[in-house]
């Protein structure tokens, strides 16, 4: 399954996602050909159970798709839709065609099946068909039709990707279901898992671009990649890229049944650290040309800078994890690091 995904998604993205398309989308165009291709290839419903007409892939297999979306800087909420459809499937709901996303930053109330409140930083809110959010007391998963929104404010993240504010005023919910078991009552961890995998893909791509440029660019009579000082810096990029990839993959693998807090926090922290280090080196190696709008380097570096802050920054997750570490005491640290799957209760409940 995984190899098939890998081949299919690489083909689609290589054919259809060009820097020109990414620039057009940043100017407000919806990539309809790309989206319909993804839907026809059943990529958007990859993680949906077969009984609901999905591919029934394991969550671990879908890691490949999310990583590829990050590597290609896909200008559509493809990764977000995969996650939303996976959550819908886990809640026993039919997947939906069309772009979806989760709303992790929400103040939503639901009375008699009608939802009111403000959802912030919704990826591609303006283009979504539906939004998957949650309401508390008791914790439930709620699905809303964006057409029923009372208001939409167009906003973007640092990389220019849509992160809209969507306001609902007594909108009829399409579904209100109990939260699937193993999914904590906020979507921050789910979002962090998604972004860490996209970041791992973007980091791989950044490494390729930087290695390629260092091989081509000649100064002092030889490719700059022949200088040890450049080699050593790019080697460190490779280390961090490999580290982020492994961490993100582990986060997906461990979250197949229950959302695994520690692997996700570790993945997001490591990806953030890698992003800051690798973006800096990539720009240094590329020199002035990499700082131009025309060059595609910033399609990756600006996304890395944006994604590392989304769904909890390094500072946020490090602090949250550090509080758990201290509250649990030194004797609990090693057992916590060596238990591969289960999240610690404190880590999922303590909010700073």
């Amino acid at each position: 399954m995984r190899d098939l995904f890998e081949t299919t998604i690489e083909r689609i993205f290589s054919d259809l996602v060009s820097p020109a398309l990414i620039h057009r989308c940043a100017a407000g165009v919806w990539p309809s050909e790309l989206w319909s291709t993804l839907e026809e290839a059943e990529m958007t419903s990859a993680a949906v159970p077969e009984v609901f007409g999905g591919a029934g892939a394991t969550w671990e297999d879908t890691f490949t798709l999310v990583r590829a979306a990050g590597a290609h800087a896909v200008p559509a909420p493809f990764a977000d839709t995969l996650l939303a459809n996976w959550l819908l499937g886990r809640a026993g709901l039919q997947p939906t065609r069309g772009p979806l996303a989760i709303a992790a930053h929400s103040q939503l109330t639901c009375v008699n099946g009608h939802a009111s409140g403000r959802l912030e930083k919704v990826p591609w809110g303006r283009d979504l068909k539906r939004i998957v959010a949650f309401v508390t007391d008791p914790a439930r998963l709620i699905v809303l039709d964006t057409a029923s929104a009372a208001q939409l404010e167009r906003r973007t993240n640092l990389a220019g990707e849509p992160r809209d504010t969507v306001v609902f005023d007594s909108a009829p919910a399409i579904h209100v279901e109990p939260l699937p078991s193993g999914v904590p009552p906020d979507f921050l961890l789910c979002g962090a898992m998604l972004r860490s995998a996209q970041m791992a893909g973007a980091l791989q791509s950044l490494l390729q671009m930087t290695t390629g440029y260092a091989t081509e660019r000649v100064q002092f009579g030889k490719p700059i990649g022949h200088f040890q000082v450049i080699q050593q810096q790019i080697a460190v990029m490779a280390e961090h890229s490999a580290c982020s990839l492994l961490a993100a993959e582990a986060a997906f693998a461990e979250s197949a049944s229950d959302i695994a807090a520690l692997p996700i926090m570790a993945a997001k922290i490591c990806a953030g650290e890698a992003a800051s280090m690798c973006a800096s080196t990539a720009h240094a190696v590329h020199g002035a040309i990499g700082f131009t709008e025309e060059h595609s380097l910033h399609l990756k570096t600006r996304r890395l800078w944006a994604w590392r802050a989304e769904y909890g920054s390094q500072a946020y997750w490090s602090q949250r994890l550090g509080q758990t570490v201290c509250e649990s005491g030194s004797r609990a640290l090693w057992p916590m690091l060596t238990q591969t799957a289960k999240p610690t209760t404190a880590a999922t409940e303590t909010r700073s």
Partner: protein
Amino acid sequence: MAEELRQEVRAFLVDALVDLPPVRRADSWMGFDAQFSRRLGERGWIGMTLPERYGGRQASAFARYVVIEELLAAGAPVSAHWIADRQSAPMLLRYGSEAQKERFLPGICRGESYFCIGMSEPGSGSDLASISTRARRNATGWILNGRKVWTTNAHRSHFMITLARTQEKTTERHRGMSQFIVDLKRPGISVRPIRDLTGDEHFNEVVFDNVELSDDELVGAEGEGWAQVTAELAYERSGPERILSCMALVNTLIDRVGRSPDALQARELGRVAARLFTLRNMSIAVTAQLQAGENPAVAAACVKDLGVTLEQEIPEIAQAIDQMEPSSQGSDYAKVLAHLTQLAPSFSLRGGTREILRGIIARSLELR
């Protein structure tokens, strides 16, 4: 299965290390205790991946990983048998003759036979291929002459796996080297401990003056020493000892900070936990590749460089989030901090410097 083993090792260590103070736990795999090594041997926790006919348990690489990471995390004194278990035994199993396996492996598994690695020389550190220790053929075997330096535990080991030139240097500088098992009691060998900057004696200078070696002390094929050494270094570079050297400090630092950290303390400790968790996963992944018979030299270089970078950061993080002065006369925390602050520079030297590791990675990216 591996998790049951983990609990068994933990229970054993709680009891066996009850009187070991934190500052001695900070010695980690530099702590020498032959009696402790023999106890581990009795339990079958040394050479455990080896076939049973050589004294091993035919356990998986992951089972061994569980045992050694538990030993390191607890700060157990494992130095006596460490190199034999990690490096010499797998090397002998792969390249040694049947007679060598039968002769050396059972003693390693019992925790009674200790090995050291003779690679570096006064004129050959990172540039290992430039060694000048020389073994020349004579009628009965080989005559070894030369000098090794920075040899960890040579003064307490029974054998050294020695890398020596057996052919003249040619333009193909990686050719013509071979590995020998040298009995350190042999006439013509002198071992002189070298004190490190903390005053401890871990490493040594070893001089070979016309040392006679027999043919059956050559390991593997004559002239193939370089390939054997680089394969062996993947074992040396990817293990949990490249991540956990400062666990004693992390633990005492958490105790010192207490249950209500400030924001800076929480962030730094959380980051350390995240790095430890991820690097451990990377290290386990390399172990799986080694078990599958691959030679993950590049991945091992990644683990070691990232791992020792973290290990070296930990004393600095401690200084950044707490004001206690490091002191060999202070609290447990102050002693551990003093000890590890001074040991830390060695982390990125032993087993290949960071520059060498990054060079290996750069080569894999076809930059050189």
